[in-house]
């Protein structure tokens, strides 16, 4: 299959099917994240890449038989390895024995947040989540440093909107109407993460999707006038600073790194405050990194257009 566009669409449908599978397994938070990130942002970013790279794959001169053979052998070895694992969902599997019952039993008493996924993600395994946010941030830094924008073309294109976008009046009006509810919904998902599915990652992705809709329809220059690239870079660093800052504040107040119990007079209130601030940091970083990556990809496409006019 040489048509990369069909590959991107199939990847989107695959993400959607995986999200439905997670829903069937009753893992609502994971399904939420998979649907929003996999079927939404990934497809949009890959389409933006295809605009730069070209739609069809170049003809390879060798047949990749060796690669296929390696993949088949490794895959079959992995499947053979899983035959030894305990039966799916059995009660005496090791994963259900040691850590999980402790989290499930003590989460309400120690943390007081109804959504156990959020309490595990932000409090019990807060250190891992800090690492995940650092990975997202590093990806953003990588894109910013690789796709550099020169100052001269930036000044030329300050007010231009491509002509074909000015004719899309209906789309622009509807997008303008839908943008506030989308952003408010993102904020709702962010702060409702304690009680239902949600949390920082999903909220950041939905926020970024709304801004990407606006930028696609109104032109890159309008989008960049609202979200200046300098501000976006600052915000992505600010999110991580907030997260790690909460950890350091816990250190200064006498507990361990990221031990939220010492933040307030009462351990449960301390946990609430800690989880709130930490999820806010996650949401800010994810949203600004996604918007930055999209702006950089679109800038490269648009730059060719402006140079040829």
């Amino acid at each position: 299959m040489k048509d990369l566009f069909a590959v991107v669409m199939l990847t989107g449908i695959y993400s959607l099917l995986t999200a439905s599978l997670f829903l069937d397994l009753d893992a609502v938070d994971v399904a939420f994240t998979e649907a929003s990130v996999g079927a939404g942002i990934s497809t949009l970013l890959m389409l933006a890449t295809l605009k730069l790279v070209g739609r069809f794959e170049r003809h390879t001169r060798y047949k990749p038989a060796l690669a296929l053979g390696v993949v088949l052998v490794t895959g079959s070895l992995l499947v053979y390895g899983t035959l030894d694992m305990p039966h799916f969902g059995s009660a005496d599997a090791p994963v259900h024995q040691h850590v999980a019952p402790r989290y499930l039993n003590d989460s309400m008493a120690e943390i007081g947040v109804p959504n156990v996924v959020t309490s595990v993600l932000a409090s019990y395994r807060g250190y891992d989540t800090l690492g995940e946010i650092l990975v997202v941030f590093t990806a953003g830094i990588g894109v910013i440093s690789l796709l550099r924008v020169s100052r001269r073309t930036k000044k030329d294109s300050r007010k231009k909107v491509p002509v074909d976008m000015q004719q899309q009046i209906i789309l622009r009006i509807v997008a303008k109407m839908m943008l506030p509810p989308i952003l408010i919904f993102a904020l709702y998902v962010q702060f409702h993460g304690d009680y239902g599915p949600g949390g920082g990652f999903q909220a950041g992705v939905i926020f970024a999707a709304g801004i990407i809709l606006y930028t696609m329809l109104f032109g890159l220059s309008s989008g960049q006038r609202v979200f200046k690239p300098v501000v976006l870079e600052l915000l992505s660093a600010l999110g991580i600073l907030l997260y790690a800052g909460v950890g350091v504040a816990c250190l200064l107040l006498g507990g361990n790194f990221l031990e939220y119990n010492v933040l307030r007079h009462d351990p449960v209130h301390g946990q609430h405050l800690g989880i709130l601030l930490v999820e806010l940091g996650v949401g800010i970083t994810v949203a600004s990194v996604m918007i930055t990556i999209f702006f950089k990809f679109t800038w490269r496409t648009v730059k060719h257009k402006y140079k040829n006019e």
Partner: protein
Amino acid sequence: MFALTVITLLIVMALALARAYLGPTLYDRILAVNNFGTKTVLLIGVMDFLAGRPDFLDIAITYALINFISVIGVLRFFEYAGRNATDREG
């Protein structure tokens, strides 16, 4: 009652997938995928009532959004790419 709706929605999704596979031009495929996405939102809504957990509606809203933004994104992509959109793909 819900079971009838779920079965109908699954049949509709299968027909949309068939059109996505068959459709001669590109726009048929985009239309079929958009239809598939809308039916998925409805399916999530109805299954949420079947299972009795009201949490799934957030996912339905998110997926309705994502579907819309993806279709707009794909159409933008083809406006910029231009000429090879009306090629007959078999």
